């Protein structure tokens, strides 16, 4: 306990210097937090996506149409619990820059198990009852001030049977989605109504969503579906939502090398700067350390007090830096929706701070511990 005032006065011996070191460490760990958070956060997001929901699409491209007729054949694959046909198209609301993604689904049976949506049961019931019903993603409803019961006109490139490209839907509810892909400005409509009303491409879907009865069967089901349509005019490619997320977010993974280099550079620069400062300040304190030793402080005690000073500054600064990173993280996370700061990054950051403090204080602390009293008091 008696060491505490000693450590404290050591820190405030040169306030300007301590504050500068504090800021330097703080800035370095803020950057570390954001970059490492981005990298680890993406990896965690991929891990959270569902491996038991499959997406069956044409093997050429994600948006190449498949015939609806494949539905029954996919359903008959053992292990398949639910198959939902999905059609996607773009629409605009009022002005061309207010774009919406329209997702047409067939809400049969346990269809929700093939999606990551959360929808209140009464909305689902209303959605099934009304052909022109639409369920709006919560954020979009808020953005345009839409309420349940509203009749919303949309403009699309997909023409109706009448040749008109105007579509209108009745809002029956809102939903939230825990999936990270697919954009956030979306609404759900009934596939059967849409398919009947449209002019061209009738009876086709963009993809099928498949939920498997047992996650362990996912790989076998994937292979079996693709095998059934191999060498047909409609070859399919079946992927789990996790694989899909992986390939979508792969691009950020490609930045790993750059992120690693930068984090490395930051830590090296920081270590060098702080180690130099510590050495400098220990040298300046030689006479004081000599007095301490004369009073009976052992070499170990002096060693520990220097180390503790560095630890205090580093831990406090790293904590504020990582806190800052958590605060500004939502800005960086704009690139990847749904990203949040993983706690592990904060923990690793703190461990790094302790390590950095130990490294940068090691040489000065050893120097101080070995100090010869006579030489120190003479200021040599």
């Amino acid at each position, binding site marked *: 306990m008696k060491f505490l005032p000693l450590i404290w006065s050591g820190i405030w011996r040169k306030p*300007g*210097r301590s504050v*500068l*070191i504090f*800021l*330097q460490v703080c*800035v*370095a760990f*803020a*950057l570390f937090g954001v*970059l490492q958070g981005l990298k680890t956060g993406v990896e965690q997001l991929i891990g959270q996506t569902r491996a038991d929901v499959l997406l069956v699409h044409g*093997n*050429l*491209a*994600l*948006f*190449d149409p498949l015939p609806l007729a494949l539905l029954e054949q996919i359903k008959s694959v053992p292990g398949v619990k639910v198959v939902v046909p999905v059609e996607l198209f773009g629409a605009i609301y009022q002005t*061309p820059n207010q774009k919406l993604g329209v997702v047409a689904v067939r809400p049969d049976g346990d269809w929700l198990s093939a999606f990551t949506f959360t929808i209140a049961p009464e909305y689902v019931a209303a959605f099934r009852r009304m052909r022109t019903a639409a369920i709006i993603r919560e954020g979009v409803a808020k953005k345009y001030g839409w309420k349940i019961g509203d009749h919303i006109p949309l403009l699309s*490139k997909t023409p109706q049977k009448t040749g008109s490209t105007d579509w209108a839907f009745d809002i029956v509810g809102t939903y939230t989605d825990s999936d990270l892909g697919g954009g956030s400005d979306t609404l759900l409509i009934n596939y059967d109504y849409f398919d009947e009303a449209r002019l061209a491409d009738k009876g086709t879907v963009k993809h099928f969503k498949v939920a498997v009865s047992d996650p362990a069967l996912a790989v076998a089901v994937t292979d079996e579906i693709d095998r059934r349509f191999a*060498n*047909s*005019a*409609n*070859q399919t*490619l079946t992927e789990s939502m996790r694989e899909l997320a992986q*390939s979508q977010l*792969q*691009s*950020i993974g*490609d*930045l790993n*090398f*750059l992120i690693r*280099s*930068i984090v490395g*550079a*930051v830590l*090296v*620069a*920081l270590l*060098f*700067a702080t180690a*130099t*400062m510590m*050495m*400098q300040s220990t040298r300046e304190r030689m006479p004081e350390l000599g007095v301490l030793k004369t009073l009976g402080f052992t070499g170990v005690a002096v060693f520990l007090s220097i180390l503790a000073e560095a630890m205090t500054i580093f831990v406090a600064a790293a904590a504020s830096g990582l806190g800052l990173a958590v605060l500004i993280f939502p800005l*960086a996370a704009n*690139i990847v929706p749904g990203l949040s700061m993983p706690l592990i990054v904060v923990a690793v950051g703190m461990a790094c701070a302790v390590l950095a403090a130990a490294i940068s204080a090691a040489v000065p602390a050893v120097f101080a511990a070995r100090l010869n009293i006579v030489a120190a008091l003479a200021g040599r």
Partner: protein
Amino acid sequence: MNFVRQSLALLHVGLSGVAARPSSALTILIGVTCAVGALVSMLAMGAGARRQEMGAVRADHVILGKTGERPGQSDISKDESAVILGLPGIRRGDAGEPIVVFESMTFIEGRKRGTGTRIYFPVVGVTSTVTQYLPELRFTAGRMFHPGLHELIVSNPCAHQFTGFELGDTRLIHGVAWTIEGRFDQGQAQECVVYGDVDSIMSAFKRNTYTSVAVMLQSAADFDAFRDAVSSNPALHLEAMHESAVVEDEFKQLNAILFFVAYFVGSIMALGATLGAVNSLYAIVDSRRGELATVRAIGFGPGPIVVSVMVESLLLALPGALLGSGLAWILFNGLAASPLGYSIQLAVTPSLAAIGVAWALGMGMLGGLLPALRAARVPVTMALRAR
């Protein structure tokens, strides 16, 4: 004159003392090196992207798309295409035909070499005028596709990055085998481009409209006349745009993200380096208190002291800038990164090195300011008595 002489003399004293305090100078050097290196290598991504995007852009290229829609996602009917061929100002090819390329673009799937990662790349159905539209296009192996057949030609970067693009390889598109018949280089472009006959592509994907139309003008100066001819023609609902504007628009988002990330990371690291420099310079000034008080006592003014410390700070930051840019060049120049799905070759250009140097001078200036003021304010009597 006296001011300059005094400053130079003080600077000389200061710099000759650097050797006695190598660690402080090294702190500044390493801090600045890391900050500049990070900034330059991040900016190199943006520069590489830009070089790649703009590499094939020509001033006499014009892209036609539906008014208000993005070219590449337009629907241009065959009726309109006949009208386009008759527009004025279009350059004529060897056989007297107008150099107009009707395009239908779609994305198909490819596998990366080595990792097997899936990536979607564009397959562009084009008319055979494309070889005249793109004079930089040179075949390195094989030949041009034959119209009406299921044949593809690919740029060399495709073959380097993805599997299945060797001559004679086939790919199934809707149950029909398409053969790779030619490989080509296109100037410096590092993009993977796959071309096939537009009619074959359109029938394979059951389309009956083109997604965009590219036109080569007689000269870049004909653009305004051509644009007016397009917009005043009642049979066309199209808009003519410079190729550069189309490409710029396409990559606006990517460029903005790269730019933001580079300056975000660069600024934070520069902040850290500046703090380190301030601390080191404070230490240097502190250790020279007696010396500074002495020169004040023999008549040196505070102005030259401020200047000499600032210049010393700048001179200590400068080698860091050169080292940082150099390291970025050695480590990252030419490296292929693929952020956000685009494949980019990093390019460390002289102008980026210049930005790095400017950045470093900024750090040196800011880092030197406070210590310089402190140096000038050393109270003469106290500093001398403290010795």
